[in-house]
């Protein structure tokens, strides 16, 4: 096992002066985050949310305006990039175009002054692991995107870094390869057990790969937790919408007890259950998250809802409609048996067994 590190961000902020005098952009504000040894944490958020800045501060390309970054107990906040012992996979792969695949992988060991024989053995091992051994002599531009990706990962791990950084590593691959690669990436990361920070704006990638997801917006953590937690119990409508499809509908609290909260949504009763229920009182208006796949519905000529748009997605069908005035989507995986609806068709929904989640109303 490689000796890996626990990463700690302690009150880290990064300000950039903007071009207008006196204005400042806070790319990251007061970030506190720990990545436990061997875990893979993804930073997820829209562009400009500060995720890349966080990654670059850990790599050493940027220096925090305030706060500190530690690897185990060592403060590395101001340590130069080249003495941090970090591996990184770049969005563009950043393979050295004038070196062969093998030379690319061997570069880090050569820089570290590892003896030739030892280096050769380690390069062979890693190339074997990544299944890139048979194109060792090729130039990077002779490889496909997926192969380049493997070389980039091999190059990043061969030096046995204490932390591995991924900067949107799969965004240049086509959809199918991306899904394959994220399984492979995760398998290799788990096998090597390297503490990893993974930046992405693709929620399905984050859900599939992470031990823990950190959702960011405007340089501030919105929520952190396992993929399931973040998906099922979003802390805000932003998080709900950013992870998968979410319907945010207005509702009125009917009853609030320790066992659960009953909410009236569009004349139906739905229930929220959790160990950590929000403090709401009966009669209060709330915003509720309904995941499209959880809304049960049936065709009903007398139904209150009208299909406004039909989107065929192959394995399922999306119906766009309005629930309590809010634009909503519901999806049907069983359309092959049940038949499809058309625009203008009426239906009714049943929220009795739909898991419901209350989020704070948008400011």
């Amino acid at each position, binding site marked *: 096992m490689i000796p890996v590190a626990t990463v700690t961000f302690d009150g880290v902020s990064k300000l950039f002066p903007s071009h207008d005098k006196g204005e400042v952009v806070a790319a990251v504000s007061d970030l506190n985050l720990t990545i436990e040894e061997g875990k893979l944490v993804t930073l997820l958020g829209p562009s400009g949310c500060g995720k890349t800045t966080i990654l670059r501060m850990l790599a050493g390309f940027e220096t925090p305006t305030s706060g500190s970054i530690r690897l185990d107990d060592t403060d590395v906040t101001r340590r*130069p990039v080249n003495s941090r012992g970090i591996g990184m996979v*770049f969005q563009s792969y950043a393979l*050295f*175009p004038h070196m062969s695949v093998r030379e690319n992988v061997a570069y880090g060991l050569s820089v570290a002054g590892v003896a030739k024989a030892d280096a050769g053995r380690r390069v062979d091992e890693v190339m074997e692991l990544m299944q890139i051994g048979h194109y060792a002599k090729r130039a990077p531009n002779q490889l496909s995107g997926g192969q380049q990706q493997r070389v980039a990962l091999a190059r990043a791990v061969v030096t046995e870094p204490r932390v591995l950084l991924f900067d949107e590593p799969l965004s240049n691959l086509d959809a199918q390869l991306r899904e394959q690669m994220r399984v492979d990436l995760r398998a290799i990361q788990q096998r090597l057990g390297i503490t990893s920070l993974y930046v992405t704006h693709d929620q399905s990638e984050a859900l599939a790969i992470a031990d823990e997801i950190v959702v960011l917006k405007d340089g501030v953590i919105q929520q952190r937790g396992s993929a399931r937690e973040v998906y099922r119990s979003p802390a805000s409508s932003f998080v709900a919408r950013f992870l998968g499809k979410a319907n945010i509908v207005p509702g009125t609290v009917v009853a609030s007890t320790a066992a659960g909260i009953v909410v009236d949504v569009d004349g139906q009763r739905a229930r929220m259950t959790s160990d950590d229920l929000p403090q709401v009182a009966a009669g209060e208006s709330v915003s509720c998250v309904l995941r499209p796949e959880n809304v049960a519905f049936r065709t009903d000529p007398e139904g209150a809802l009208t299909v406004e748009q039909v989107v065929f997605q192959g394995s399922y069908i999306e119906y766009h409609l309005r629930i309590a005035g809010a634009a909503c989507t519901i999806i049907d995986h069983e359309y092959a048996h049940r038949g499809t609806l058309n625009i203008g068709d009426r239906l009714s929904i049943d929220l009795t067994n739909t898991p419901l989640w209350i989020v704070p109303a948008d400011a």
Partner: protein
Amino acid sequence: MQTIDSTELGALARRDERAQRWRAIRTDPWLWGIFLVLTLSVAIFILLPIGAVLKSAVIGPDGFDLSRLGDNLLASHVWRALRNSLLLAVLSATAATAVGFVMAYGVTRTGMKGKRFFHLVALLPIVSPPFVLSLAIILLFGRSGVISSDLLGLSNANVYGLRSLVIIQTLAFSPLAYLNVRDMLQSMDSSLEDASSSMGASQWQTFRRVLLPLAAPALLSSFMLVFVKSLEDFGNPMLIGGDYSTLAVEAYTQITAVYDMQSGAILAVLLLLPSVLAFMIQRYWVGRRSYVTVTGKPGRTEIRLTAAKVTVPLTIVCSAISGVILLFYGTVVAVSFMKIVGVDSLFTLDHYRYIFDRGLSTLQNSVTLAAVATPLVVICGLLISYVLTRRSFPGSAILKWSTLLSFAAPGTIIGIGYILSFNSGPLVLTGTAAIIVGAMVLKNLQVAIEGGNNQLKQIDPAIEEASAVMGASNIRTFRSIVLPLLRPAIFTSAAYAFTRSLTTLSAVIFLISANWNLVTVTILGQVESSRLSVAAAYCVLLIVIVLAALALMQGALALLTRRRDQ
């Protein structure tokens, strides 16, 4: 991102940014040292001399003397020279841009035959000293010229003056326009033409309303570049200007014949102003209006124009232009092997023998000094380019603007500035080889910088970051990653610097000495004393040396690339 409107935070962020700059120095002490040395050299060899000329323009032998400045500015010969220079520059720039555009258009966007040939001929003037063409026009159209006297029987043909100058400069500087416009037309996606014709436009309408407006910035930029080159040109106006005096020649005369340094300085300043202005327009105004971003990869260009009504006239025009260029160079080559031009056309090596007997010292000097200047240009240029694009050291602006100034400033002002600055004082260089090398390096530095910039633009910064993350020091990254990737830029700037240094005249004419005379000055002397055949032989030797050097560099590049592949 959060935008916070607070002066206190703003101060914090700016302090942070400043701190980061100082940290850049701490992590890169070597690069910082190099940066300091470069900035200091640039200040000594660019700012100091130009400052000296400006100072000397207002300070006469009796101290601060604005009246002399006034007298000079009102003097008729100064006005005439200024007017002449500007008129010549405008005419040459217009004609050279037109020639460059026609050739570039034919070569890049039509199905014209013989493109490779036209391309090579269009570039021919680059590898020769510009005044070879002047020599050719004298040989062809002069008093005893091959065409004027032998073919037409004119006994008193006058080749000297504006008309010849425009022709010569047009041919000499058209490669600049050709390359500039060609780059632009090559990177223009042919789907734009397709889009236009899909909307029903005729080929003429597409040309006029799509291609021409898109090419306009490149045309304007070519105009400005040739304008600056024409103003700077010394050799051609000296040789065939006759009574048509220009600023560069007038300044030289004032200093070397009349010994009036102040007048010379004033003329040089008058030369500097329009040059810098044109250069700034080219760089900042035209540059911003460019629609096509040159990515280094040629766009998807497919040939759409193959109709004979387009290609035939274009072929005729391109052939005519090429014919003239080849005629001019051919004449010089032929004459160098003829006994007495116009009288006895028998083949002879006498003129070459004369040169070898008389000694090759000036030719050797030129080659030696150019060979010393070339690596300096490449190393300094690429380092400056790297520092300016990849690091933000405090004070980079001085470096950036000084090198731009060195490119825009005509050789005349650099030459005069060097005399003024390095004749006395702490750094006496007059009469040494160093002062000539200094001028050669400075005049070519900017081209190497631009070459480096263009190459670096194509290198993803993440590639350097990847090296750093893997533990490489900045020196190691530069050596193992950046330098190998800059190789194409190294070779192009070396080729340019060597060619230009070997054929330069306008700055070094002020700096030569008994010990260090140059071949271009020798050629000028031979023409002035009417030994045209000897001058022609010198020119041929010079062109052969340039071509050999280019071939050598090309070969070295190919060899290095091949070794890489193995």
